[in-house]
């Protein structure tokens, strides 16, 4: 007995030892990995040249999965640079959803800009370190990262002497235009259509013409509008500073009042998307977080998310423009109480937002997706995908592919196109991944021919039966 007891004691001692080893070991591993994942990322502000250099380095390190391109120039001729990440950069692969992050449209809201530079580096590092989640994400998504939509404004803000940056200097572009009020106000149109009937999607008519001839649009705004029209973006987020919350459509209130919950048809999905970001950011999702400034009204914030109109009305914003002019769902992320905080806080901001940023990209793989083709297998582009009960339709892209973000539930999804017979399918949608639903549409001509054939079949049967 004593022998057993003795060995038990020894065993317990050993277990205790191994427990500590395990604990320290795992702690070490965690530390190592944390350090490792943030290796190669510099936490300092990047001016325009440094920004360019940083993106270039990412490209040089991961040339097979990245590509740098520009969507145009700012007023002062700085390139609006985008780093694209996918397994086939430069190409839209049919069925692969497109995602974008845009930051720093207000030049003095600097944290987002830095976060996106960090994100690009991080994704490249992780890809090369065999991080399966990241590898899958990059292989199945086309991710576009624009660290700065307003490089001119940033330069102005960053050039201010001293540590404390003004709340307004550098916010607007070089022409003094607030880019987040500069987009065509489609909210007004949708509200009219809601009352009087009309289209529920793609409200910007004669797009190219309207944009190019509109003298009120800043070059940065124009460039982004063209970008939105050219690439069939599915999901997007727009990074800001000055508060900490994930904000979703609609931004402009229906009645014009300063505060009013203004739900979009996809209110459920937007709440889900906003939460998907906020829940991985410990500061944003902290229910006991005090407001950024003592007298701030954050009564509309819940779980780190808020409806735009409920917080305060914003007309002409980029977020709503995405939803109402294209298939893209966009939310606005406010990531720091300080718009242009001290450089040594950048690392903390990165750590707070890293997982949120990655998880939000994953959200693009939700809902229903697939192809719309005719009976010969040819893709039908610009076909309409409508969901019963949601007054917002989306359209198929050039390859007939579509992605319809939906919260979990049972839906009836219809595909229709002019000259074709509509097909409706019932789908049970889980949280994720996206459910594949393809449609084969019969053209009206084909149906007519089918009917004619049936006619002949019937006649043949009749004549055979009646014997002549």
């Amino acid at each position, binding site marked *: 007995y004593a022998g057993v007891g003795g060995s038990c004691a020894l065993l317990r001692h050993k277990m205790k030892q191994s427990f500590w080893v395990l604990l320290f070991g795992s702690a070490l591993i965690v530390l190592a990995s944390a350090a490792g994942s943030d290796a*190669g990322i510099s936490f300092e502000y990047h001016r325009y*040249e440094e920004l*360019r*250099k940083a993106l*270039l*380095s*990412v*490209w*040089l*390190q*991961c*040339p097979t999965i990245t590509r*740098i*391109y*520009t*969507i*145009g*120039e700012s007023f002062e*001729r700085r*390139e609006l*640079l*985008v780093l694209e990440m996918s397994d086939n950069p*430069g*190409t*839209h692969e*049919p069925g692969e959803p497109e995602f974008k992050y845009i930051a720093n449209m207000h030049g003095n809201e600097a944290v987002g800009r830095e976060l996106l530079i960090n994100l690009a580096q991080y994704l490249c590092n992780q890809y*090369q370190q065999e991080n399966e989640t990241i590898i899958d994400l990059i292989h199945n998504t086309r991710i576009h990262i624009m660290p700065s939509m307003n490089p001119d404004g940033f330069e102005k803000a960053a050039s201010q002497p001293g540590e404390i940056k003004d709340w307004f200097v550098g916010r607007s572009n070089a022409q003094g235009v607030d880019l987040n009020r500069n987009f065509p106000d489609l909210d007004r149109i949708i509200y009219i259509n809601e009352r009087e009937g009309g289209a529920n999607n793609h409200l910007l008519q004669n797009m190219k013409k309207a944009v190019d001839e509109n003298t009120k649009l800043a070059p940065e705004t124009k460039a982004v509008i*063209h*970008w939105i029209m*050219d*690439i069939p973006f599915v999901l997007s987020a727009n990074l800001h500073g000055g508060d900490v919350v994930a904000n979703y459509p609609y931004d402009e209130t229906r009645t014009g009042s300063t505060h009013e919950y203004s739900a979009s048809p996809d209110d459920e999905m937007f709440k889900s998307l906003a939460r998907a970001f906020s829940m991985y950011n410990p500061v944003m999702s902290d229910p006991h977080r005090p407001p950024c400034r003592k007298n701030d009204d954050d009564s509309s914030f819940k779980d780190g998310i808020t409806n735009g109109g409920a917080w305060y009305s914003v007309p002409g914003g980029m977020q709503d423009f995405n939803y109402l002019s294209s298939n893209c769902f966009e939310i606005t992320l406010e990531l720091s109480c300080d718009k242009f905080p001290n450089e040594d806080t950048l690392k903390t901001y990165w750590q707070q937002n890293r997982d949120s940023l990655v998880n939000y990209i994953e959200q693009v793989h939700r809902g229903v997706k697939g192809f719309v*083709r005719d*009976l*010969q*297998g*040819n*893709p039908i582009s610009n076909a309409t995908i409508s969901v019963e009960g949601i007054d917002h339709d989306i359209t198929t892209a*050039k*390859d*007939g592919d579509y992605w319809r973000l939906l919260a979990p539930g049972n839906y009836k999804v219809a595909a229709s196109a002019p000259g074709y017979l509509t097909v409706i399918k019932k789908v049970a949608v889980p949280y994720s991944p996206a459910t594949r639903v393809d449609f084969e549409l019969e053209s009206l*001509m*084909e149906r007519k*021919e*089918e*009917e*004619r*054939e*049936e*006619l*002949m079949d*019937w*006649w*043949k*049967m*009749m*004549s055979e039966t*009646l*014997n*002549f």
Partner: protein
Amino acid sequence: MASKYFGLFVLVQLFVLEVDNQTFAFPTPTASTDDKAVYNRQLTEERPLQEQIAEADSVKAAVQSAESKQPAAFKDAESEQASDDFTMLKSLADGQKSKDSREVLVKKEDHHVPDEADSTKSRRLADDYDSTKNGMDYDDTESFRQVDGTPLTAEDIVQKIANKIYEEDDRGVFDRIISKLLKLGLITENQADSLEYQVAEALQDLITKNAKNNEVEDTENIAQDTGGEQDDQGADMDTWEPRKRSYNEEEEEEEDNDDEQIEDDVDRDAEEEMEAADNTWDKDTEEGNEVGQGDGLQDLQYFPNFYQLLRSLNSEKDAQERETLITIMKTLIDFVKMMVKYGTITPEEGVSYLENLDAMIAMQTKNKLGKSLGLPEVGGPNGKNMDEDDNTKSETAKMQKEYENLRDSTKEEQPTAESTLDQPGKSETYLEAIRKNIEWLKKHNKDDGKDDYDLSKLKDFMDQQVESYIEKGIIAKDEGDTIKRIYGSL
């Protein structure tokens, strides 16, 4: 759609049964003064036999000519017609002669005549039931039934109209009737359309049969009658006989001959209509002719897919299917020709319809039979080229060119200001990045078991990319050179 036809099929079957039932009940004609006179005359047994025979002959001759206008078949009428029968009856009966009605009565009465009457009378008996199809001829506009008490079928209406058009040789008849019906809201546009098809078909048949009958009548009038009568005696009381009746004269012939007859008629008609149809067909024959002429399917050569399909049905067991398909196809062609002839559609529309039909055959064959007709299939969406589909590159290239001059000047400033300070820093960073890439490639290829990555290929690719980036203003020339240099030194 199928259910609609099924419904009509059932309806038709009911008719068959109904009429069959009627054969044993003597049909009760409604009276009119003229007919009464005839009736009475016929009943008198004391009438001299000769007179009766003579009368019978004249009646028979009249009947024959009426017969030739009889419905060739009950067509695949749309069932929507059924409800409109009654009013149709009314309006048509207005214009209808009552000539036939007398004959009908005569025939009916003969049913009672004892057997020693000449055989023409018993023939008339069969005509009776045949003539029920023509019930509308009976001059009672109030009656909604045929003489034997069965209601009119849609086919009858179609036949009536076809007969009328044929008699008057005027397509305007159809238009008048249809417009009247449309105006009265009795039929819809769709129904009018389908009615048109059916009438055209019925008309075609009329013409065909009439041509045949004319031929036959001229040569072997009496002999055929006898032959026909004998057949009729054997024929049962099936009232759907009429079409068969018309062909009775040629009953001895094979069915194949019928096909040939149709072919001949079709060819003949084709010739006529080709001229009428602005030689559109001629154009098509030249273009679409990839099939041999030898097998007598002249018209079908314009349909390569259909022909392929036929060819694929070459085995014996498929022979019947083949025949059926040919018949159907020819009928469709006739449809269209009739449409064109009567101006319902333009020749171009007819041609395009048939072309579409051919294409549709290919598709349907592929879908339903699972075989391809050996013609090129439609490619999937995989044939996309690797150029980017978004025009970010083209757009930016455009914008680059626009501001090229200005940009050059600004670019000159930047490098000179910063290059002296940053150049070593830059090259270091780039070097570091490139090194990481090479490392990863090495490791990656090793893991995959591939041979060492192709450094020269990578170098070329990078050079190319650098060039395009310089062009777009994403990197400066000297930066690009630095990068190229680094890759060159590897």
